[in-house]
């Protein structure tokens, strides 16, 4: 059970993220849901790479030879960097839309249909 805790957290975070994206009407809240979802994936990747008793893979003054795999952490880091760029672009879009439509409500921003 204890082993699966990170994965349970992943499932919970995914559920929260998806429900925010589907249920909320404010654009900024939707972006927050997207970020929660990204965190869920990052946590998943980190949890996959964990090894029992392992320490962080830093070689300077390492006390123990058992280390966790650094590759998932590198993947996670890359995904965080991409997440920052994504969030910045999305927020810029939200800002422009607010300036044009005067609202951030997704139900009001609906000029493109059909």
């Amino acid at each position, binding site marked *: 059970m204890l082993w699966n805790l990170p994965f349970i957290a992943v499932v919970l975070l995914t559920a929260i993220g998806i429900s925010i994206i589907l249920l909320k009407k404010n654009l900024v809240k939707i972006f927050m849901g997207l970020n929660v979802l*990204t965190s869920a994936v990052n946590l998943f*990747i980190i949890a*996959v790479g964990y090894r029992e008793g392992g320490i962080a893979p830093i070689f300077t003054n390492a006390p123990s030879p058992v280390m966790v795999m650094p*590759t998932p952490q590198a*993947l996670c880091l890359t995904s965080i960097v991409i997440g920052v*760029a*994504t969030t910045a672009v999305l927020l810029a879009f939200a800002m422009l839309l607010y300036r*044009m439509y005067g609202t951030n409500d997704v139900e009001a921003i609906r*000029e493109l249909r*059909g």
Partner: protein
Amino acid sequence: MIEEFIFTNLPALMVAVPLLAAFVCPLVAQISPAMRKMWVMGSMAITSLLGLLLVMRVYTMGTFVYVFGASTPGLSIPLDSGGIPIRIVFTVDAMSAFMDLIIAIVGFCVILYSLSSDERRTSPQYYYTLFLLLIAAVIGMVSTGDLFNFFVFIEISSLASAGLVAYSVEKGRAVEAGLKYFMVSALGGIFLLFVIGILYGQYDALNIAMIAQRMQFTMLDKIALVLLVAALAAKCGAVPMHFWTPDAYSLAPSSVTAMLVVASQASLYGLFRFTFTMYHLSLNYVTIGWTIIVLGVLSMVIGVTMAIPQKDVKRLMAYHAISQTGYMLLGVGVGLAVLGNETAINSFGTIAMEGGIFHIINHALYKGLLFLTAGAIIYRIGTRDLNRMGGLGHSMKYTMIFFIIGSLAIAGIPPFNGFASKLLIYESVYLFNPFLAIIAMVVSILTLASFVKVFHSIFMGPPLPEFASVREVPLPMLLGMGILATLVILFGVFPQTVVNLIVAPAVHALIDQSGYISAILGGA
């Protein structure tokens, strides 16, 4: 010396040149606009040239493996790594080279076109930075042999194309389209990252060939496959995840739209690459094949029926793009559905796949041409509403000719290239399931009907007084369209040569999983 340097580093240069050009572009633009144009055009010409060299090299000498950061380019498995390809590997096989060819041709024409069509944009240096970044990302997507690298490139392409779609703000409408597109892409990217986590957790590898070799097709792999197909089908604009396509395609600048078509096809390439090379026979190929077929048929039918009532010329073409994506999915899906059946794949499976793959390049050419002609019309008259157009055939003769070529090709009329690939699809799909072939033909007829209507309302009729001052578009735009139109005709007149030269090796590369694995892992 320099020749050897270029030939050993071709795949890396293909990505490095547009990246470098993109980053230098704002600095060069400080000097003068003319310098900026020359810089963008020159770097794109070099990229296309490198692309053509790479294609020739791959088709004559086989798969090109290029390892980043190794001491020699071909050393995919370092001596002390325990048999695991730990570095990022570019694996350019015939299928990747095929996609590179599309990018080289369409990218060159589109940049040439946009030199005139986009000169009035605000801060064009960033426009071209994003544009070159998109080209670099698409080249990376089709060349890479590493799952995570694919994810990074797909995210770069999403970021760049979202910025480009929203570039002309247009009272917020373009931003809305960009937002829709980017939300779908971001969700797709997250799905893809989940897939990477699942596969990495099971097989300790990110290299596609390595994963393919170790693939067990467990329950987790099935979940990964579902997420993968959903993410990539959404990115390539297949029904039911197509809702971003008409918005993004219609509101993006026309040159960007033509490139977005290619970017969607790179996602399609990803879909084919993962199902064929990574999962191959270990997957339940009949079910997945039928899933792709159903996605394809839905895209064809819904795309064309939604296209007919449209009033906006680019929106109409965007729905046709969805419909044409369906043909590719249909052709390759049939190939996937009979993958394990030796007699079926030899009698019609390969031909169906040839049709589907051939349709990719044909679609990129004629759809790019059509979007560019639509852009040329909008460039001159400033509206995209079909009801307000008319009589342009008197003043824009070349554009009209190019439009006729493009629309006959998309409707599958001989001797244009659309006919060649559609015929391959009809013939082979008829042997697989006659009903599907009939749907495909009906969709083709509806496409023709729709384009006859569009042609009539744009070009026919008496010259309208409000368009009296309309002239032909500038020479670079005509040249960009002209190259595409020439290729549309050439591919239609000599289809057998094209299929034998470039399409058949690409199909073979997709089917031949062990060849792909042994190119990297060495005699698997």
